[in-house]
């Protein structure tokens, strides 16, 4: 079932290949700019850019996740999946797992290019990449896309309309960041740290020096995901197809 779910997500070639290529292009452009403009970039300095540049991959993951959540209902295929007798809860969990795998696969080319570049363009001013730095960079690049793909999948399941799902999910991804900034500036830095965009960033960078602890940030991400995924599951369980 998981394989067929992944095949369905990847089979939407327009959105899926766009997501891969746009994410990859962003990384390549970032590397070229750093190498040509600063001239002394290389090694771990390139890997450090994994988290900020993953914003492009995050937006693409939103597209993939939102469609994964909404497409079956919008397309009328959900009723045929339900008619197979597979419990709705299992259909939903498979969809979530498929979204995670498809998002990871989508991000892999950019991660590979980033890591290979870090080795290819070493510079005396920066540390040489290590395995742990590579893994850290891969996680930093993947964390936001994975989290927001899941959020978008839940939103898609909740809204059941492709256009609305993409729109609202992009709103969460972009607007959430802005809202977090406002809270950080005018309300409370600690509170902002518990909001999903900030908590995900702290978790992505494995940042031990943020306003909230790393453990608390991970916990906050888990709670946010549980809330979104729970809402999507609730809709799937009670919907009539």
């Amino acid at each position: 079932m998981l394989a067929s779910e992944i095949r369905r997500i990847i089979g939407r070639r327009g959105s899926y290949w766009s997501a891969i290529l746009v994410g990859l292009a962003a990384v390549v452009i970032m590397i070229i700019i750093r190498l040509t403009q600063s001239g002394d970039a290389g090694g771990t300095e390139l890997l450090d850019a994994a988290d900020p540049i993953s914003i492009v991959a995050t937006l693409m993951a939103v597209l993939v996740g939102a469609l994964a959540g909404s497409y079956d209902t919008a397309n009328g295929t959900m009723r045929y999946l339900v008619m197979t007798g597979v419990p709705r809860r299992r259909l939903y969990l498979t969809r979530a797992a498929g979204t995670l795998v498809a998002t990871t696969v989508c991000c892999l080319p950019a991660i590979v290019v980033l890591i290979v570049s870090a080795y290819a363009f070493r510079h005396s001013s920066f540390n040489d990449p290590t395995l742990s730095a590579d893994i850290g960079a891969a996680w930093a690049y993947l964390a936001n896309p994975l989290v927001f793909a899941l959020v978008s999948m839940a939103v898609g399941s909740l809204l059941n309309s492709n256009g609305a799902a993409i729109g609202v999910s992009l709103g969460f991804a972009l607007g959430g960041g802005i809202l977090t900034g406002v809270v950080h500036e005018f309300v409370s830095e600690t509170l902002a740290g518990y909001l999903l965009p900030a908590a995900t960033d702290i978790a992505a960078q494995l940042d031990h020096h943020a306003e909230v602890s790393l453990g608390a940030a991970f916990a906050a991400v888990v709670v946010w995901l549980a809330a979104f995924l729970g809402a999507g599951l609730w809709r799937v369980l009670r919907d009539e197809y």
Partner: protein
Amino acid sequence: MSDAIIQLEHVSKRFGHQLAVDDVTVEVPRGRCFAWLGPNGCGKTTLIRMMLGLAHASAGRINLRGFEVPKDIQKALSRVGGIVEEPRFYPYLSGQRNLDVWAAHYGGEARSRIPSVLDRVDLTERAGDKVKTYSLGMRQRLGVARALLNDPELLVLDEPTNGLDPAGMLEFRNMIRNLIEREGRTVFISSHILDEVQKMADDIAIVQAGKLISWGPVDELIASGRHSVLLRTDDDERARSVLSGISFVTGVSRNETHKALDLAVADIDDERLITINRTLVEAGVGVAEIWRESETLEDRFLELTADSKPGDMSPVQKEGDDAGV
């Protein structure tokens, strides 16, 4: 224990103040084609959606293959296939890939059945093409192929001949009859196409505004209606007078289409036709022609639905409640 493959007991479905399915009780026997016949908007699809666990019943009990729905929905659906409203697929995947998706959900031997079900619906050659290139008829056939993947005991098909041309309808009808007669499957179809249902179904339930009006074997249902005898005489006025004395003639009117007298009779056979003829001739009325108007499902359907108002049914019209199949 009943041999019914579908048992519905006082099933209702309400959308706000709208009662889409109204207290339906019926049993669908195994190994037959059972048609749920009614005009558009009479709750046919809603009933099917409840049977297949796609929608929740507001009241009543649904039993499919001996399993209660929705409580034991997985067991109930494990050998049920269906098309609801229209067959939907992933247009960007091929027919083969689409069936792979559903086979993965069914598990078991479903995947190994893909070649044979594609062959059965004559789509083997186009199996590698994307579904978005398929015609409606091909999608309908692919829908049947998908419905057969889990080797179903019961096929539930909602308006299955919608959009098919006459040749496609004939082909579809033959396929349904084969599924029943050669393989012993049960087929439950919903339709508003009377002629098609009469040719395809063994049993029919007639519904109006969500309410079951009558149900039973097609022949019995048709035969249970009012019957007409048409006759042309040399003196219609005198014939009317004579006919009023015959006990089984319940009414006489003028049929302008045939330019003949139209006799409403409770039941008709050759003996009664002879009695009518003999009585008229003995009374000095010349009978030029006398014939039985053949009854069709359409006549019976119109008769039942014209007479019936939901919630205002006569005991005769509720015959299905007592008849049993």
